[in-house]
């Protein structure tokens, strides 16, 4: 009697596995209903919402500056870029121009955040594929970045470091030196990790040709950020709609060719180097002057609507702000990059193996805080 279920189990051709929400490599509370035939994936159905906190509803009761801490908690590995998008949207709607020093500070912090976010990605992606050690190397570097954040704004993860109209504080004395010291030693570390992974035959076998998505499909599925660039589309908000002072710095937008996991890996590694390049230029040019524009004490944008997006580490992070002229947003919608990138997951893994599923989740670099909001 007891054996019947095992027998049924053995006879079944398809098996449905519930992957998550407590699975070690679903990067949070993602749940995937995976239909497999042996180890081959027939279909994947993502189930999300375990971390839904109603952020957009909360925005509707907060003052504009009060919204900023809430954005920290969406993509919690990249709080600075989240802040940047929100304040950018409000500034666009109010027509505020921020002082150049504030703009450069924002760029420095945002690029540091991009490094930190990519480090988390590399750490967890490598861990998913089975290499434990890069995790610790990456987190060591990330901690140095978080130290810089802590020195600047007092928090390491949920920075809340921007205000409508500029930056709340100026840099502490010596911050630029420490930042420069960090970015000078950083590229050598990237090379170390690349020696560990890039040419490694196991790493290549695990990533080349896995989770392929063509350029046309990538656009169709709305991918942005490294997943789009990995497919060979040279498209970056920083270049297309430059915000802050991105039009004044030089940097390249790396692209891949095949749109597979390996290309996305290479793109992100190169983006880290480009970020270092941007930070170096910003530190050289960092002008003196105020860090806060003249803004009214109570921020009341005019009636109207605006969409403003930044190139977050995960892709295009957009804020759609509808104002009725009050001191709280009438509606503040977030266009989360991860949410939309995750949607392409079933398309990318269908027909591949369970081990690839893990690799593709890692390469999409999702953060459930942003997906569920």
């Amino acid at each position, binding site marked *: 009697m007891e054996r019947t279920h095992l027998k049924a189990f053995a006879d079944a051709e398809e098996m449905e596995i519930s992957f998550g929400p407590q699975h070690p*490599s679903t990067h949070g509370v993602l749940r995937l209903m995976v239909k497999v035939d042996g180890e081959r994936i027939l279909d994947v159905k993502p189930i999300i919402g375990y971390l839904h906190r109603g952020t957009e509803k909360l925005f509707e009761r907060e003052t504009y500056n009060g919204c900023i801490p809430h954005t920290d908690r969406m993509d919690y590995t990249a709080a600075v870029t989240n802040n940047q998008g929100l304040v950018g949207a409000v500034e666009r709607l109010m027509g505020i121009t921020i002082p150049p020093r504030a703009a450069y500070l924002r760029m420095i912090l945002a690029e540091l955040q991009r490094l930190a976010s990519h480090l988390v990605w590399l750490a967890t992606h490598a861990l998913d594929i089975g*290499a*434990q050690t890069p995790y610790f*190397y990456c987190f060591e570097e990330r901690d140095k970045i978080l130290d810089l954040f802590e020195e600047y704004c007092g928090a390491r993860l949920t920075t809340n470091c921007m205000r409508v109209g500029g930056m709340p504080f100026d840099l502490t004395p010596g911050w630029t030196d420490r930042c420069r010291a960090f970015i000078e030693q950083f590229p050598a570390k990237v090379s170390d990790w690349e020696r560990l992974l890039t040419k490694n035959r196991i790493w290549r076998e*695990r990533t080349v040709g896995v989770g392929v998505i063509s350029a046309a499909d990538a656009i169709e599925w709305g991918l942005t950020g490294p997943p789009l660039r990995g497919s060979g589309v040279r498209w970056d908000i920083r270049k297309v709609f430059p915000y802050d002072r991105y039009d004044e710095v030089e940097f390249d937008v790396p692209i891949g060719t095949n749109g597979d996991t390996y290309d996305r890996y290479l793109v992100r590694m190169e983006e880290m180097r480009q970020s270092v390049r941007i930070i170096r230029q910003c530190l050289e040019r960092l002008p003196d002057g105020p860090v806060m524009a003249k803004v009214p004490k109570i921020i009341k944008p005019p009636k109207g609507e605006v969409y403003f997006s930044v190139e977050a580490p995960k892709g295009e992070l957009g804020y759609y702000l509808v104002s009725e002229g009050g001191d709280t947003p009438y509606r503040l919608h977030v266009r989360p990059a991860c949410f939309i990138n995750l949607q392409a997951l079933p398309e990318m893994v269908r027909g591949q193996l369970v081990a690839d599923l*893990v690799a593709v989740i890692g390469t999409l670099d999702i953060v459930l805080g942003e997906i569920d909001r």
Partner: protein
Amino acid sequence: MTYLVIPLVKIVVILLVLILGAAYLTFFERKILAYIQIRLGPNRVGPKGWLQAIADALKLFVKEDLTPARSEKFVFLLAPVLIIVPALLVFAVIPFGPSDIWRLTDINVALLFVLGVSSVGIYGIILGGWSSNNKYSLMGGLRSAAQLISYEVPMGFAVVTVVVMAGSLSLVRIVEVQRELGVWFFLPGIVALFVYFVCGVAETNRNPFDLPEAESELVGGFHTEYSGMKWAFFFLGEYANMIVISAMATVLFFGGWLPPFPNLLAPLWALPAVAWVPPPFWFLLKVAAFIFLYMWFRGTFPRYRFDQLMRLGWKVLLPVSLANLMVVALGVLILGGRS
């Protein structure tokens, strides 16, 4: 009387050393991994963390032993036993030193015995994965079966290379031949050593071939549902198997208990200052080096995928080991082997 007592004492000693050694291997592994990962590792229990292994064992002893409600109870219980017993059994024939004191027994088909017994261990994994009634465990068990089939064959051929060179299946004899020839077999058999060690890593389910447990894919693989002492048996079995593979590599390719350059430096080893060093010291040193290699691998490499692992086994290691066997056999034929 001595006929019974001395082997019994030896068995007890070997088992104790082995189990304690396996327990402490976990400690060393954590330490080495931590140092590779610029951490300190366990250093709280006891002086410098030296009691960590004991604490872990104690924890596992007192931990609640869960059996999934709809599992195959008997097989579920049998699996950990199946994995640890063969791993321990192998040590019956491994020679730690030249004289009879340093080994339990010397049988003339020791190599066959080792290969045969150690492959039984895989059944523990397969059965454990199947009987847990967990999909992740089942997949872990299936992967393990595939791995077993793919890697037993090239490993066998790698070992045969040594047999061709030594002309014997007795482990003692193999070491003796290495001493007589004055050259350890890793030099003529470098390819065989490589194949053997890769297969050994795969057989023990260690990184980069740790697919059956593959934590980031299958949660815990075949031992997802195990806890407490049953789980500890899996763990002990894994580490005991590592010791087995390392010990075999030492015996087959690195001259077992022989000190480095036994003939060239013979006067040095005869000096009273070093002559008191018992032969097992050299043996254990070499084993430790191999085990360190295991841990170094774990700290460096990503994990292979299931189909890639099979491809590596069948398409690379098998032809390489076969070709190598032919070359070595030819060499032995030309140089006047001793068979």
